[in-house]
């Protein structure tokens, strides 16, 4: 994952500026067929609306000019009955009906196109269960043919580029909404129900998304990064995720692990290869590889990690993670250990 890590800081700097010039989170910069269909529908509707606006502005201008002219000549400013009826019939009934029909058909065609893309994914596409939590994303990568090859991570969604991926959208608490604007529209995660979408990233890259349904006090800081890999890199990534960690050899990292285990972190978090099997907080098994922390809120640097652990409530007030009092040295060791998980 070296090239990705090298990209991390400058990329995050760009993402942090929310700069739409780069196309990040830009609905009108589609990077996959579903988003392309939606964008196409948008542009057609937009230009239709512009045309209507231009025509009616022109009518208004003509009407004003005529009214002015007639007033000057002392004539009555009225259309004949026939002219008025024709104007209302065409301009108020026929043409709007046609335009609305066009928009309706367009909408239906776009929707069916997206569904067809979903069906075209085949009987057995790569499937990932996305469970929304307050305020993070649990990601379970499913391999129906080999259940022992299933694993769970959090917040950073990795997919292969160039092929469809099916997402099962569920919620552990309240309604959230999954939205990666470059790739698809918004789809809610509703407790008690599984929603189902198929999306595809045409080219490798990093696409930012965020929760799109108000879910509580830190809704605004519940983002995710969707990382699309070339096919072979994705297979390698999957293999790596399956590998549980061996106990650290370095004594400093061992002490860091002891800080983790001894301060309650394992009650909520999981690290494959250790006794930490908590299910209510993000999996940390390969935290060292991730680009961001706290659901896209912070860059994954030592400074941010320690600031987060020392006082999560200071960064995301209302997050479920408590502050655990740690000495300066313990905090260092813990951060070193967590960053070693790569």
């Amino acid at each position, binding site marked *: 994952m070296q090239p990705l890590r090298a990209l991390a800081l400058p990329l995050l700097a760009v993402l942090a500026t929310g700069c739409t010039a780069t196309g990040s989170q830009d609905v009108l910069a589609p990077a996959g067929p579903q988003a392309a269909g939606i964008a196409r529908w948008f542009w057609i509707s937009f230009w239709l609306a512009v045309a209507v606006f231009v025509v009616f502005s022109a009518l208004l201008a003509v009407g004003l000019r005529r009214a002015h002219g007639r007033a000057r000549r002392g004539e009555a400013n009225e259309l004949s009955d026939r002219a008025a009826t024709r104007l209302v019939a065409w301009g108020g009934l026929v043409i709007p009906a046609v335009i609305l029909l066009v928009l309706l058909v367009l909408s239906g065609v776009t929707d069916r196109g997206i569904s067809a893309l979903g069906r075209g994914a085949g009987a057995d596409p790569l499937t990932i269960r996305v469970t929304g939590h307050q305020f993070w994303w649990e990601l379970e990568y499913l391999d129906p043919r080999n259940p022992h090859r299933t694993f769970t991570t959090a917040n950073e969604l990795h997919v292969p580029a160039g092929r469809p991926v099916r997402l099962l959208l569920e919620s552990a608490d309240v309604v959230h909404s999954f939205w990666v604007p470059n790739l698809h529209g918004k789809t809610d995660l509703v407790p008690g129900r599984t929603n189902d979408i198929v999306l595809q990233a045409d080219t490798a890259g990093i696409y930012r998304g965020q929760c799109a349904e108000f879910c509580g006090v830190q809704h605004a800081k519940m983002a995710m990064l969707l990382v699309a890999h070339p096919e072979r890199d994705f297979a390698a990534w999957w293999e790596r995720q399956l590998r549980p960690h061996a106990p650290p050899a370095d004594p400093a990292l061992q002490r860091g692990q002891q800080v983790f285990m001894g301060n309650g972190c394992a009650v909520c978090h999981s690290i494959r290869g250790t006794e930490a099997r908590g299910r209510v907080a993000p999996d940390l098994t390969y935290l060292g590889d991730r680009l961001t922390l706290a659901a896209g809120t912070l860059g994954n640097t030592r400074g941010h990690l320690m600031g987060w652990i020392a006082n999560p409530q200071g960064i995301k007030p209302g997050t479920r993670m408590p502050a655990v009092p740690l000495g300066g040295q313990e905090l260092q060791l813990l*951060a070193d250990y967590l960053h070693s998980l790569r």
Partner: protein
Amino acid sequence: MLHAAVLAAIACAAAGCEGDLDPRSPAHVRSAAGGHARNAPKLMREYGCISCHTIPGVRGAHALVGPSLAGFASRQYIAGRVANEPDALVRWIMHPQSVKPGTAMPEMGVTGQHARDMAAYLYTLE
């Protein structure tokens, strides 16, 4: 009216002159640190300073893990350990553990130029 304006202008100029004579004035110290303060806010967000410190003028920096850096330029000590001078500050930012072993501030791999840029910014916080 004109009189008052001219007097005010002279007074302002005089105050400016006074600042330049002081060897610890911001401009002098900035050049001593050799950094560009305007780069600092972005660097502070990238390295993660904002996750522990409250820093005036830096978006998102309102944390309470480490001390607030408001008024940093007027402080006598860094971390209650060394005198507040440009070289010491740059060294602190790059290697806090070597200045105060066991402190909660981590080694963050800050490069020399980045440390000088951030030091220059901190010296604008009167």
